[in-house]
């Protein structure tokens, strides 16, 4: 017998016979000896089809009653009972649409519950990302989780509504005003009264639901009084991950589950001409071949047999479509029809450029990059009954959005969305729209075809070339005019980006590759001219921090002083599927903005930190820049460092900063590098990064995110570029050798994080700040060290050597 560490159950109980026996999401349930049940859980288990007629405020019960697979139907997120249930046994179960990818948000959400309800952390059971149980909160992305849960309509308001109701109930039961009540770990006492005169949450509710709407008048706890939030509570998922017990989506194991693999086109856009199923006849493993339009997959009894079948299956594909020549990509991008938009346009930039004492221009280039999750994506689907109103589907997926996936799978399979349940199970870090949705579609298509549960595991090449949606390439052309005092008068930016598909939703399974292969259209880009902007939104960080953001006569929406400003963005059709990749567009735009700001500072021979401060108007922005510079012991002087030699190894420091999405987290970074001018190799030796995301929920967790974001930013700056062959029409970045990333063994920078923690402002996002500014910080440091400006990512040794040769 193998020694097995049997994990405890902490998923919704096995209401359905094909539920995986156990999913470990965090360790506290293992430490928690209570029966992990809740009143709502019991209700769901016992009520079954008898939900009609109940009025318990947990959603659209009529719809639920008609659904064989979504017992709670469409949960109404305006009702407290959709978020929290407190059992007569004192169990506290919280339901959330915001999921865990290793960013630590399940820990933060648990802290939020403990804080607002005044209960011990270990008592809280958090269920997230299950269309059968959790409210629809869209996707977990865009540094929006904290914003969502702490804002009106989110988890905090549900908790506060529940807390206020419990205070009222306790007031009645103990016969004292609420002002005389104190609550300790879910038990009410009378202040200064007999400790025996007490009543608990469970006793108050006695298993009943709250039956309340979220109350917009509730007052959340003041961050200045936090005792759980604001502290470095250890991540709840790490012990089981360290022990190798954690069950990722790769470990969902169902009775009768078969193993699938996909067979993808050998070149971009190739279509199926013929599938010779006889080519796998006689192979072991009960091989089944599934074809639907251009979707081809195999199913077998084991993974190994499925892999052998993929190798043997003879598929004839059409020839390649014409791809743009990669060597000419950035020129090609600027020649395509585009959909255009202005972020700002003050209308006077041509005139102001003429008046400027000094004019500068530069072009910045950013490649296609991929998410490259460490795990090739995996999902499990159990589709019963084919298609139509009698069919059902359950999907175990590491998707960022269970509800959007439910709706898109419904269309993909031809099954009503009420008959589809998507259950989030964590995969490896995804960093955006990687292959998790595609592989879920693949598993659903295969399971539907064979009528049994199917697990699909992508091979690495499947993930890289035909599973995920790349972060798009960017071209950015900059112009600036500076007055006689060295102050920026005018700033213009014209950028080009590409798009194909995006996150799938109810009507667009074709937004990702698997849906498109199965025959669903990918909505085409519709070229359109830009119209004058009506409101300033810098959500894509297209505008630099240094403009006023005055639009249509409105008050300034930007963070800077430059009044003459134009930011025009062209979006063109991409030959490859694209989607959000950690700091989508913001990173590419910020590389251009913050590199160009450095070029202007150098042109007027002013220290880059001081020059930024001279053009910033927002006090929080100024503070975060000052804090990074101070913590890094910034050497105040213009760049480049004139003391450095033109040969050998030289060092330099660079700064970059951003207000992420224009309103979602201030961040500044000082990068220190050494550059070997003989080899062109850049080594990032130190990163000092400061951040203001409002009141910090978990300081160590935030530092962990900032550190990882910074080092992932180093990887994207120095190594990462999706490559393809125009000759074969194929993506050639098929694995980690052909898509290199930062790896162990490369000297590690010292990473120092500085947390500003203002308590009197709203919480903002945090997870994408540092990565956004890393490329520019490194490029600016390389310029400081060498006088060579790097305007094209990644900063390969070849490009560094070319820039060194060009510096004169």
């Amino acid at each position, binding site marked *: 017998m193998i020694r097995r560490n049997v994990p405890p159950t902490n998923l919704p109980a096995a209401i359905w016979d094909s539920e995986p026996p156990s999913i470990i999401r965090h360790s506290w349930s293992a430490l928690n000896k209570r029966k992990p049940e809740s009143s709502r859980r019991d209700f769901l288990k016992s009520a079954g089809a008898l939900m009609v007629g109940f009025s318990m405020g947990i959603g659209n019960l009529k719809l639920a009653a008609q659904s064989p697979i979504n017992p709670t139907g469409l949960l109404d997120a305006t009702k407290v009972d959709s978020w929290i249930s407190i059992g007569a046994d004192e169990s506290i179960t919280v339901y959330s649409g915001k999921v865990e990818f290793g960013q630590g948000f399940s820990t933060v959400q648990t802290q939020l519950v403990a804080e607002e309800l005044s209960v011990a952390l270990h008592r809280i059971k958090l269920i997230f990302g299950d269309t059968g149980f959790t409210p629809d909160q869209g996707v977990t992305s865009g540094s929006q989780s904290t914003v969502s849960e702490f804002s009106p309509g989110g988890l905090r308001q549900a908790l506060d509504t529940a807390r206020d109701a419990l205070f009222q109930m306790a007031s009645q039961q103990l016969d004292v005003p609420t002002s005389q009540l104190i609550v300790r770990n879910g038990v009410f006492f009378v202040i200064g009264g007999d400790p025996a005169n007490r009543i608990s949450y469970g006793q108050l509710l006695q298993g009943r639901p709250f039956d309340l709407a979220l109350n917009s008048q509730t007052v959340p706890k003041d961050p200045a009084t936090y005792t759980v939030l604001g502290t470095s509570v250890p991540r709840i998922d790490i012990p089981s991950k*360290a022990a190798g017990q954690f069950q990722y989506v790769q470990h969902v194991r169902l009775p009768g589950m078969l193993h699938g693999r996909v067979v993808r086109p050998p070149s971009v856009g190739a279509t199926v001409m013929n599938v010779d199923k006889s080519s796998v006849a006689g192979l072991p493993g009960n091989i089944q071949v599934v074809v639907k339009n251009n979707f081809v997959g195999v199913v077998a009894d084991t993974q190994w047999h499925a892999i052998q079948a993929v190798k043997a299956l003879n598929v004839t594909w059409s020839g390649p479509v014409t791809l743009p020549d990669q060597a000419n990509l950035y020129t090609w991008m600027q020649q395509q029809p585009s959909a255009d938009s202005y972020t700002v346009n003050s209308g006077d930039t041509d005139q102001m450029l003429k008046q400027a004492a000094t004019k500068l221009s530069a072009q910045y280039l950013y490649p296609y990059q991929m998410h490259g999750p460490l*795990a090739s994506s995996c999902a499990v689907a159990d589709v019963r009954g084919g298609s139509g109103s009698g069919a059902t589907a359950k999907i175990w997926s590491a998707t960022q959005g269970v509800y959007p996936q439910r709706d898109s799978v419904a269309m993909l399979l031809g099954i009503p969305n009420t008959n589809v349940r998507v259950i989030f199970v964590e995969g490896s870090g995804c960093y955006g729209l990687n292959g998790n949705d595609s592989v879920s579609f693949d598993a659903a298509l295969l399971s539907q075809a064979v009528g049994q549960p199917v697990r699909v595991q992508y091979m*690495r090449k499947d993930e890289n070339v035909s599973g995920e949606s790349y972060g798009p390439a960017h071209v950015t052309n900059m112009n600036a005019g500076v007055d006689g005092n060295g102050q920026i008068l005018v700033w213009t930016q014209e950028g080009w980006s590409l798009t194909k598909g995006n996150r799938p939703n109810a009507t667009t399974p074709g937004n990702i590759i698997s849906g498109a292969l199965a025959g669903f259209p990918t909505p085409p880009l519709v070229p359109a001219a830009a119209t004058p902007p009506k409101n300033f939104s810098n959500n894509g960080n297209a505008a630099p921090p240094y403009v006023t953001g005055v639009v249509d006569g409105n008050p300034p929406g930007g963070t800077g002083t430059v009044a003459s400003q134009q930011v025009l963005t062209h979006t063109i059709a991409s030959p490859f599927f694209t989607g959000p990749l950690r700091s989508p567009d913001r990173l590419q735009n910020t590389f251009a903005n913050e590199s160009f700001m450095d070029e202007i500072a150098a042109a007027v021979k002013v220290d880059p930190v001081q020059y930024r401060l001279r053009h910033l108007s927002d006090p929080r922005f100024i503070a975060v820049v000052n804090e990074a510079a101070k913590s890094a012991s910034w050497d105040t002087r213009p760049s480049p460092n004139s003391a450095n030699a033109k040969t050998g190894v030289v060092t330099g420091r660079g700064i970059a900063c951003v207000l992420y999405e224009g309103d979602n987290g201030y961040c500044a970074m000082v990068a220190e590098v050494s550059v070997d001018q003989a080899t062109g190799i850049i080594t990032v030796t130190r990163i000092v990064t400061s951040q203001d995301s409002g009141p910090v929920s978990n300081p160590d967790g935030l530092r962990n995110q900032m550190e990882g974001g910074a080092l992932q930013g180093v990887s994207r700056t120095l190594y990462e570029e999706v490559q393809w062959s125009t000759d074969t029409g194929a993506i050639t970045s098929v694995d980690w050798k052909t898509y290199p990333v930062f790896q162990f063994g490369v000297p590690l920078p010292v990473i120092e994080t500085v947390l500003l923690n203002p308590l009197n402002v709203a919480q903002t996002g945090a997870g994408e700040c540092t990565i956004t500014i890393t490329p520019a910080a490194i490029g600016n440091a390389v310029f400081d060290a060498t006088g060579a400006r790097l305007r094209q990512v990644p900063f390969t040794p070849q490009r560094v050597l070319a820039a060194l040769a060009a510096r004169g």
Partner: protein
Amino acid sequence: MTVNGSPYSTDVEPETPLLYVLQDDLKLNGPKFGCGLAQCGACTVLLGGKPIRSCVTPISTANGHTVITIDGLGTVHNPHPIQTAFITEQAMHCGYCISGPMLYGKAFIDQHPNATEADINQALTGLLCRCHAHTRMVRALARYAKESA
């Protein structure tokens, strides 16, 4: 073969990668499929005490040998000191890669108890962590080295 201290025998094609047997037949969650190409290290196990990539190691190679996975080092309630070090340093994001740094790190440090952080980072060459939690993982391994010295 012996897996995490218990004998195990199986009847599969000898070329079947060890990883699939550990994950699917033995239902172990420690070694994981990352690339299937020995390029990332998520599938790392100790075979005869040495770290190997189980995604490209045929099961026949393990025949008669001892396999240790991170599942076999310790548990949530009774973690191995190296697991404790990772927990103490909060040394991961998603944790999917963890078998590589933990087992290559353990094998190296057990042989080089005075290793510095730079030595440890060098010893992990060829492994990937895509969340880029490298600095914490190296710090955790240095902690393990220090505390087990």
